[in-house]
């Protein structure tokens, strides 16, 4: 008798629990639904892809072909993605003459176009600070200056990735998605980065940019000459940064920001070549680096004409 009561009680309870579980599962499926459309867009090959440094040349060829096809499909643009390697005996360095920089921000704009940055956000790897003459204190600087430049009481200091020799951004990355290449460039594997943004917090020069959403660029504005580690269109949710335009500079060309500079304030070259202009600047000018006290050892130098 009691047994009967008990068992029927249990079955009613179980039935209620069953309904609860079904409703719960349905609600769960509904809640998670937005993700399913997104996962449908991600390819299995992409998901399983190994770290850049572990890819064989054949695997790389396949990946480049896949990325080109994806760009065609998603952005409607024919692009050519290459993977230029560092050259032997080359270490890149950049120098910038603060006496003649006029703060026109042409470099930032060129960077935006060259590197296939997201159009709506107007992203660029370069930020130009307007500084009061007589002080190098960045706290006195301004990035959102307006009006005609140069102003007589100001000088201008563009800041971009310093390709540090002791880069804190590389140290902190938990998955080695960012590292220093042989020619001094700090690179990011966009297909390996998990988007934790620890490197962005660690960089003392505000040089890193995160892809908060999928970049939007009209097909006709896409720069088709792309590098795997540099200006190819980045996926959503990963970190990116200035690479000294390695798809250009590793082929012997100059960075886009330098070509765009109307005053010739920018000097770029191989610091290991004794006859290079960059060596001449470093040897003959009074050069300094930003935030030297942090020990990041930048490969980006600033100087004034006496």
């Amino acid at each position, binding site marked *: 008798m009691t047994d009967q009561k008990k068992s029927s009680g249990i079955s009613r309870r179980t039935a209620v629990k069953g309904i609860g579980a079904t409703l719960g599962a349905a609600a769960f499926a509904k809640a998670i639904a937005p993700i399913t459309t997104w996962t449908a867009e991600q390819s299995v090959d992409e998901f399983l892809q190994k770290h850049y440094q572990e890819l064989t040349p054949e695997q790389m060829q396949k990946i480049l072909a896949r990325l080109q096809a994806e760009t065609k499909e998603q952005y409607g643009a024919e692009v050519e993605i290459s993977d230029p390697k560092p050259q032997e005996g080359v270490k890149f360095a950049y120098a910038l003459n603060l006496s003649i920089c006029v703060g026109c921000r042409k470099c930032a704009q060129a960077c935006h176009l060259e590197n296939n940055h997201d159009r709506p956000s107007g992203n660029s790897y370069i930020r130009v600070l307007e500084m009061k003459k007589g002080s190098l204190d960045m*706290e006195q600087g301004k990035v959102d200056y307006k009006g005609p430049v140069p102003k007589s009481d100001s000088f201008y200091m563009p800041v971009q990735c310093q390709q540090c020799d002791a880069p804190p951004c590389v140290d902190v990355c938990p*998955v080695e998605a960012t590292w220093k290449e042989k020619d001094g460039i700090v690179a990011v594997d966009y297909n390996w980065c*998990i988007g934790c943004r620890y490197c962005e917090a*660690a960089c003392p020069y*505000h040089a890193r940019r*995160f892809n*908060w959403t*999928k970049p939007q660029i009209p097909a006709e504005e896409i720069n088709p000459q792309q590098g795997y580690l540099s200006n190819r269109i980045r996926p959503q*949710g990963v970190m990116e940064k200035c690479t000294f335009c390695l798809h250009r500079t590793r082929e012997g060309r100059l960075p886009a920001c330098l070509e765009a500079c109307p005053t010739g304030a920018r000097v770029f070259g191989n610091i290991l070549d004794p006859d290079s202009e960059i060596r001449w600047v470093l040897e003959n000018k009074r050069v300094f680096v930003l935030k030297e006290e*942090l020990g990041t050892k930048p490969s980006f130098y600033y100087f004034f004409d006496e």
Partner: protein
Amino acid sequence: MSSMSKTAPSPASAGERHLVSYPRFLWRIAVMSTEGNWLFYAWMIFLSAVALVGLNAWATQVSQGMVVTNMSDHVSWGLYIANFTFMVGLAAGGVMMVIPAYLYHDDDMHDVVIIGELLAIAAIFMCIAFVVVDLGRPDRFWHMIPGIGKFHFPISMLTWDVIVLNGYLLINLHICGYLLYQRYRGRRPNPKFYIPFVFLSIGWAISIHTVTAFLYQGLGGRPFWNTALLAPRFLTSAFVSGPAFIILALEAIRYLSSYKVGDGAIRILVNIMRITILINLLMLASEIFTEFYTGGAHTASARYLYFGLHGHNALVPWIWSSIAITVVAALLLLCPKVTKHPIMLTTACALAFAGIWIEKGMGLIIPGFIPSTLHEIVEYTPNGIEWRISAGIWAAGLMIYTLAIRVAMPIFSGEVSLAKDKDNSA
């Protein structure tokens, strides 16, 4: 059948009996966690609803990108990492309660031990969840798994954090699981199998908080975090938030169930909080003094946090309310009669908890980014998506904690045991 199980076990049959009693134990846990009174169901349904809202917000964030949050390249970590930081403290604080129990053999504290350890488990779950929702590419989570992915150990502090947090989770799962299973079987837990782990978990609790502090403390480019006081301050605040939460849980257990929670445990927890909340305020004063008496460029973040900078002051109300409620909590706790007045005690603990939550979250993570490394001021306030996701994780964590206590208390008190289950089914 019950007479058979009472015969002396031979070694072989002991193993066999685990084969029977362990699944039974797990099944009992599953059954218990879906059973309760209407209040229990209402609470669980409420938490599930909040958790699902959070899950939905997260799904939106993954598909549309983190642009749906209010974070930016300037303030690259926000509410998620703020909550993560606080949770690490809660996890550490939960287990610190073990010290009086085992070091001083204080019997009243033994109930608290399991409650603290279960809190640690729920809090670590929340920590991990808060890190996962902060990732731009959660689908690549496997890149972090040692062996399969690339684990940047020992250079990246984040890999240390992964190790200590997961280790801590395992240790506490082992202790709780072992104690409960032995109690369920009606055995005395063998100290060899858990006391060493209890001591390990105490040391480990310190490590999780220290390592998490080092995550921020090690960044030379962020002067606000780059202070040696960060790790010690983390620990003292953990000693405030952990006991505060446990007292609240004990009070809830007292009122909502028939379990007797000893006054002694609460008294010891209040005594711990009395000291730690004062040390916490003292360290705060010391830090404020250094920042403002010295002056200079390095204090820009502190100036922004406490008084606003160049007309930007989004964090000022947060930090002052945090200081105010922490001070009120301290005053309430210092009242000699606080342990006798449940309302006063609950208020004090809730205030202390909220005060630390703001201080370790919005008051610590966000000002580290403002002004940015190039001295731009870009402000940040969490938006709806971020609040929803965070609330969802809190709800899921509370769900885990409620279930854990729901299961642990009857087993601990002997109300549910293997012998009784057998009698029932016989």
